[in-house]
C-alpha cells in the first residue's frame, strides 16, 4: 500500500530534522524518512565553527575564495543556533567560548595573521594572541604553542543532547519519522512525487532531499549532478574531567580539533580518516587516526595525559564543493535540496530555515541565491 504524506523529507540529520520542525511549525504535515546509518549528525563533534578551517584551506586551496564569501553565513549560523536554543528553551550545552587556532612557529603565526586579516575584512571578530595572552586566557595550552588566532564567534554544543532535543521538538509538533527506511529512488507522479523505499512506496506533494552524502544519487534523476561524497572521519571522546579547556581548539597546520563538552568529556578529532564502510555499513575507526589524534591532542594540551579515551567512533561527513546546496530544483515544482556546506552541523539549523522558507514560499529568496542547486544542473553544464 502506498503511504501518503504532504511533505516528505529524505534524511533525518540536523538539516532534515530542523526543516521538518520548521515546516510543522507552519502547520504543514511532514514525514521524515531516514536510513539511520552513517549520518554526519549522529557522529558529529559539536564544534560551532566560524573561522576558516586550516584543514579545508590546505585540502582545497582553490576553494578558499568560496570559503571567504561564505564567512558571514557561519557567523549568522551560530547566532541562529543560539536563537533557536533560546526560543525552544532546550538545554543542549551550547556555550559561546570562542575558538582558538593555535600556532607552533612564527611561520604558522604569519599564516594566521594573513587569514585573520581576510576574515576581519569579511566582518568576523578575530584577533591574534601572543604566548603571554594565551598563558592568561588558555593556560592549558602546552609550551610548544607560540600564539593563536581567537575567533570570538565560535563555540560548542553537546551534539547528543541537541539531536535528542531537536528530534523531540519535531515529534512534539507532529512530525512523523521512519528511522529505518531507505529511499531507493524518486519519480514524478501526478500532483507530486512517488518515492520507492525498501519498505514500500511513499507518495508526497513535496519532497526535500536532506540526505547528506545520499543526496547526489537521488537528485540525478532530476538533472542535477550534485557531487555529494561520504567522507568517513574518526573521532575520540574521553571520560569526564573537571573544567579544563574553555575554548574550541584547532591548529594552524595540524589536523586537530578538541573541546570539552558540558559533560566534562573532551572530544578529539580534526578530520582524521576512518575506514570506509562496505556497502551500506557504517565506517570503522582507524588505529592510526586514534593514536595520531590523541597524541597530538596531548601535545597541544599536556594535561590530557591522565584522561582515558572511552570511545572512538566514525561517521560520514558530506563533502560537496564547500558551499551549501540549498533551495528549489528548477523545473520540478515541489522538489528541494538541502545539503549544508563544510561544518554542516554549524550551518544545519540556518540552512534548514532557508530551505523551509523556500518550501513555504516565504521571503524574497535573496539569502539562498548563492547556494541554489542550479550550479549542478546537467543541462546548464551542457550549454
Amino acid at each position: 500500500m502506498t503511504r501518503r504524506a504532504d511533505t516528505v523529507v529524505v534524511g533525518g540529520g540536523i538539516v532534515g530534522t530542523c526543516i521538518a520542525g520548521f515546516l510543522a511549525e507552519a502547520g504543514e504535515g511532514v514525514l521524515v524518512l531516514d536510513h539511520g546509518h552513517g549520518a554526519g549528525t549522529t557522529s558529529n563533534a559539536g564544534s560551532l565553527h566560524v573561522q576558516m578551517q586550516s584543514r579545508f584551506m590546505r585540502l582545497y586551496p582553490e576553494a578558499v575564495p568560496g570559503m571567504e564569501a561564505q564567512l558571514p553565513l557561519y557567523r549568522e549560523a551560530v547566532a541562529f543556533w543560539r536563537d533557536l536554543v533560546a526560543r525552544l528553551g532546550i538545554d543542549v550545552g551550547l556555550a559561546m567560548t570562542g575558538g582558538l587556532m593555535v600556532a607552533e612557529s612564527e611561520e604558522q603565526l604569519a599564516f594566521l595573521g594573513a587569514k585573520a586579516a581576510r576574515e576581519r575584512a569579511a566582518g568576523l571578530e578575530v584577533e591574534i594572541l601572543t604566548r603571554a595572552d594565551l598563558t592568561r586566557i588558555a593556560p592549558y595550552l602546552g609550551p610548544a604553542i607560540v600564539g593563536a588566532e581567537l575567533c570570538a564567534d565560535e563555540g560548542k554544543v553537546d551534539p547528543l543532547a541537541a539531536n535528542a532535543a531537536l528530534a523531540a521538538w519535531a515529534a512534539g509538533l507532529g512530525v512523523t519519522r521512519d528511522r529505518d527506511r531507505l529511499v531507493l529512488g524518486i519519480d514524478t507522479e501526478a500532483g507530486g512525487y512517488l518515492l520507492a523505499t525498501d519498505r514500500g512506496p511513499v507518495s508526497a506533494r513535496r519532497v526535500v532531499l536532506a540526505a547528506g552524502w545520499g543526496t547526489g544519487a537521488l537528485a540525478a534523476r532530476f538533472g542535477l549532478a550534485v557531487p555529494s561524497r561520504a567522507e568517513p572521519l574518526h573521532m575520540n571522546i574521553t571520560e569526564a574531567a573537571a573544567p579544563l579547556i574553555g575554548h574550541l581548539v584547532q591548529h594552524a597546520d595540524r589536523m586537530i580539533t578538541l573541546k570539552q563538552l558540558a559533560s566534562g568529556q573532551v572530544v578529539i578529532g580534526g578530520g582524521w580518516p576512518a575506514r570506509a564502510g562496505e556497502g551500506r555499513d557504517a565506517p570503522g575507526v582507524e588505529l592510526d587516526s586514534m593514536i595520531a589524534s590523541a597524541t597530538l591532542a596531548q601535545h597541544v594540551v599536556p594535561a590530557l595525559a591522565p584522561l582515558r579515551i572511552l570511545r572512538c567512533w566514525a561517521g560520514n561527513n558530506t563533502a560537496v564543493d564547500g558551499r551549501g546546496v540549498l533551495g528549489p530544483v528548477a523545473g520540478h515544482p515541489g522538489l528541494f535540496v538541502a545539503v549544508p556546506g563544510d561544518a554542516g552541523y554549524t550551518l544545519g539549523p540556518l540552512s534548514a530555515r532557508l530551505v523551509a522558507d523556500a518550501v513555504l514560499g516565504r521571503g524574497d529568496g535573496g539569502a539562498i541565491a548563492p547556494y541554489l542547486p542550479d550550479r549542478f544542473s546537467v543541462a546548464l553544464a551542457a550549454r
Partner: protein
Amino acid sequence: MAAIRFGAQVIAAQEGESVLAALAGAGMWTLGEDARRHPRGAWCGMGACQACLVTIDGVPAQRACMAKVRDGMAIEPAAARIETAADIVAAAPRRADALPLRTPDLLVVGGGPAGLAAATTARAAGIEVLLIDERRQPGGQYFKQRDVATLSPADAQQREGAARIDAALEAGVEMLAGATVWGAFPGPELVADTPDGPLRVRPSALVLATGAIERGWPVPGWTLPGVIATGAAQTLWRTARRAPPGRIVIAGNGPLNLQLAAELLAGGAKVAALVEAAPAPGPRHARALLKMSAAAPSLVAQGAAYRARLAAARVPLVSAAQVAAVRAADAGLIVRVDTGREIAADTLCLGYGLAPADELARALGCAGPVDDAMRTSVDGIWRVGDGVAIGGAHVAAAQGMIAGAAVAARFGRTVDCGAAKTALARHRRFQSALWRLYAPALPLDPSSDADTVVCRCEGVTMGRLRTARDEGCTSMSALKLATRAGMGACQGRYCATLLAGLTDASGEPGLAPRVPVRPVRIGDLAR
C-alpha cells in the same frame, strides 16, 4: 604486610593483593561518586565494569580491582569528574607505526582454561605462541591463582590451574600477564596496554578466549555500595582470602553462588542467607542428577558437599526466590526478596548468570564459530570458551585444545584431539543437566522501577529508557543515542544485555562494538 592509605584512613594490606581486596577486607565499599553524584562502589571485581575507579598515587581513574597493592600507596576516592594536574609534560605526537609490533604465529587473548589449552596445544606442535591476559596472573576465572602466596595453601582448583600454567610455560608459550587488549582492527591487528607500554600484535592466527562477565541485576538499590557481583566476592576470596566483614547475603541463580557460600563459610565468614531462584532440589531432579553423575561424578559430589556445609552452619537457604530490591539501612543493607521476606546484610552478592565477553570478536566482525573446530567467519580467527557461550571451564578447555589443534593444522602440523572431543561431549551433557537442576522457578526478571539505574556508568534509569523507547527509539543504537546508555566507561558491557530487553527482538547483535574495548589512557598512547 603493607599499609595503604584510603583518604585519611590507614589500612593494613597484603603486598600483591588487589586494592579492592584490601578495601573490601576493611569493609570499605564506598569508593567515590557516580555520574549522578550518588555513592559508588565496586561491582564486577574483574576489571570490566569500571565502577571501582579510584585515584592511586595521583593517577586518576584506576580500577581498584586490577591495581596491585604496594606498601605506602595513597588512594583517594574518585570524584565524578577527574582533576588533571597542571605540571604534565607534553609528549611528541606519534603515529601508530611508532608503536612496537609483534608478529607471532599465534596470538591467544585470554589465559583461562580455554586460552591455556589452545596455547599449550599449538605450542606443543611447534608453533610460536604469544598469550596475553589482563589479570595479574594467568588462569582466568576458574583457575584464578592466589595473588598473595603467603596465604593459606592453594586449593585443588588452584593447584590444577598452576599445573596448566606451568605446562604452558614449559611448552614455551610466551605469556604476557597484566596486559589488556583494548583494540582489534581488521588484519587482524590487536593493540594492548602492557606494563611496558602499548604493543601492536599482528598474528598469523588468532584465538579469542576472553571468557565471560557477570550479568547485571537491575533492581532498585543494586548500585548501592556493598552490592557486588558474586564473582567479585569469589575473586576477593580466591586471590587474597579476603571476605568482607559482617553479614553476607548471596543471591542469584546457579552453582557459583552455592560454591561461594560454601567457600566463605569454610573461611570463617558470616553468610546470612543464600537466595536461589531455582526450587530446592527434589525428586523431580533425579534424572538430571543421574545424568550429571554419569558425566562428572566428582563435580556432583562437590555440589553435595557444599550443600552439606551450608546445612551444618544453619545458613538459611531461600529457594525459588529472586532479589526484588535493596535499600540502605542505618547499618548495612536490607535485601527484599520477591516472596516479601527481608534480610539484613552488610554485603550482598548477586549472581544471576554470565554473558560472553565477545567485544573483540565483534570488533573484528567475527561471526560464529562456524564449525566444530571453533573457526569463525573470518579466516585465521578462532573463538573458544565462555567468550562464545557459557559452558563452564571443562567445555572451555576442551574447545581450546580443539582450536589449538586446528591452528596447528593450519601450519601443517597434525595434533590428535580426539580425547578433547569426547570430553567436550561429556561436559556438555553435564552442563545441560546442571542447568535443568538450576532452572528458575519463575523466569528471571529483575523488578526494575522507573528510578532503577540500568546503565551504571552514565546513570541512566529504566524510566528514561522506557520513555525513549515509547518515543520511537526501538533499536539499541537509537536508545543509546537518545539516552547515553551504553556510552560509559564499561562500553555498554553491563547494560547492553539489559537494553536488549527493551528493544524489538529484531535480532540486533547488541550495541555496535567500539574500540577501545577497554578505556585507554592518552598518556599511555604517547608513552
